[in-house]
């Protein structure tokens, strides 16, 4: 598939996803009336629901999905491994430990999100410091350090879950599965997403070379060390922000980059913007389903991303093999 038409298609998908997310819910608003309600000409219940609840949540879903997919694409290049995902180096584990601790202490939502953010950034610095320790910053060392630190966080998470009082458990489990129920402030996510995308696009062609290995990239004129540092920082920042907003939503960051590579190849000048749009669209649809499928019961969105993504991905993989 040509990249440019796909980008348009994805943009359309995002827009229709937004429209559906805004119109569906306990109070259904026909798509035709969305605009007049949004522009706030009359202060009805519909416009209140839209502006206070659905729009922030829909934008947050888009931002989180976009951030995870972009982080996944970057992490795969950084580690030279198409199986890498944003969580592989322990960023989400650190965030989870922070968030769960805050929940155990009975902190409010905002504090939980902050604790997750600090946990993620702390884990990122820890992994970076340990991997960088000897001065050599090899891919293998970074990967091993990250995976081991992530395993450590996993143990602490299990510990926290096992000592947590009964009434805290559902909230903690929801957080671990990924849940946008508390995502009310999308501006931080959108800002981080936009800034990282703008900073990443100028080095997109260098990423194509780094994907062929560090030495090949260096030989063809890429300053590898600063580029890898930039990748690590931006992927970690994206992951930390996404996880702080929506918990550890799985699957998006692994599968969207893969899926796009199957569709349009590995030119990161197209892949980076395409992964933002595709990840955002996937999470928009998944979150709309998550809150409407068994309404008023809400599902954790992480369940839906996997349920939607797995068959889609397997289908494309089959088709790709035949082609």
């Amino acid at each position, binding site marked *: 598939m040509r990249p440019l038409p796909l980008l348009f298609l994805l943009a359309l998908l995002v827009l229709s996803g937004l429209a559906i997310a805004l119109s569906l819910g306990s109070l259904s608003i026909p798509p035709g009336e969305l605009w007049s309600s949004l522009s706030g000409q009359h202060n009805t219940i519909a416009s209140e629901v839209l502006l206070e609840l659905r729009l922030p949540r829909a934008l947050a879903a888009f931002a989180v999905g976009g951030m995870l997919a972009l982080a996944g694409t970057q992490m795969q290049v950084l580690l030279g491994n198409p199986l890498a995902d944003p969580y592989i180096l322990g960023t989400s584990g650190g965030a989870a430990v922070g968030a769960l601790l805050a929940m155990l202490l009975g902190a409010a939502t905002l504090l939980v999100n902050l604790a997750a953010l600090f946990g993620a950034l702390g884990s990122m610095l820890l992994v970076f410091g340990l991997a960088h320790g000897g001065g050599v910053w090899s891919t293998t060392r970074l990967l091993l350090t990250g995976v081991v630190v992530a395993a450590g966080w996993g143990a602490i998470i299990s510990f926290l879950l096992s000592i947590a009082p009964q009434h805290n458990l559902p909230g903690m489990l929801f957080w671990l599965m990924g849940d946008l129920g508390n995502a009310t402030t999308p501006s931080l996510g959108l800002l981080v997403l936009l800034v990282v995308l703008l900073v990443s696009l100028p080095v997109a062609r260098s990423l194509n*070379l780094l994907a062929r290995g560090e030495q090949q990239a260096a030989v063809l004129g890429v300053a590898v060390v600063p580029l890898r540092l930039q990748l690590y920082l931006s992927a970690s920042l994206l992951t930390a922000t996404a996880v702080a907003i929506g918990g550890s939503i799985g699957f998006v960051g692994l599968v969207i980059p893969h899926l796009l590579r199957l569709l349009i190849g590995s030119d990161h000048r197209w892949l980076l913007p395409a992964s933002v749009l595709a990840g955002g669209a996937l999470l928009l649809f998944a979150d709309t389903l998550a809150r409407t499928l068994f309404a008023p019961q809400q599902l954790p969105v992480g369940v839906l991303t996997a349920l939607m993504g797995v068959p889609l991905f397997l289908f494309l993989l089959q088709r790709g093999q035949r082609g």
Partner: protein
Amino acid sequence: MSLLRADNLTFGVNGRLLCKGLTFHVEAGECWGVLGPNGSGKTTLLHTLAGLHPEWEGQLTLSGRPLQQLGRRHIARQLGLLLQDSHDPFPATVQETVLSGRHPHLSRWQTEGEHDRRLAHKALERMQLCGMEQRQVQSLSGGERRRLAFATLLTQAPPLLLLDEPLNHLDLRHQQLLLATVRERCAAGDGVIMVLHDPNQAMRYCDRVLLLEGDGNWQQGASREMLTADRLSALYGCRIESVELAGRRWLHHL
């Protein structure tokens, strides 16, 4: 001005000395062969010259400027390195791969243009890879990948080419094709340094050779004078004899 000057160059790996006080200058149009037993530092030498290996002392100048002062992009326009192995964990087409050679010539926001595509096409044509542009690299055979890597280097078009065992995986016809292309580059004024294992090929295609012994010692000189049975027997630690055939000296082991 020499394309490359190495003066009193000493390098090693993890504290193990490989080569001490090496001095050699590569002039435009010259083809150098590097020979030596396994682990004697041939690859490390090429990586040092390309600025990829930090463990060295001495002076290295690329077209008159000290290597340490040059950025990667500048180096990439002066020299190219055919790595011993290429690996492609991510899917990419032949066309994308060969065009990646243009990276150091393009500015940040520039995309590959007509000129770049023409160079890429010429390189693919030269390496007999035409018609494979849309193939996935992962579907190519080992020899085809090797030719693709060399075509990428031709597309990069640096005045100095470093080739690390360029003939790996190539059948006889394509070995000959690659070596003939190397001589063409030299005739056009480029310099070449290539690691080879076959002294007969070095004798035929290289003007000068550098023999690395791996313990710090090295020798260099014109191919015809250096590639003698005695010297090579001592270098590789096995009996090598020479025979005269069809007006040329051939070296073979017993």
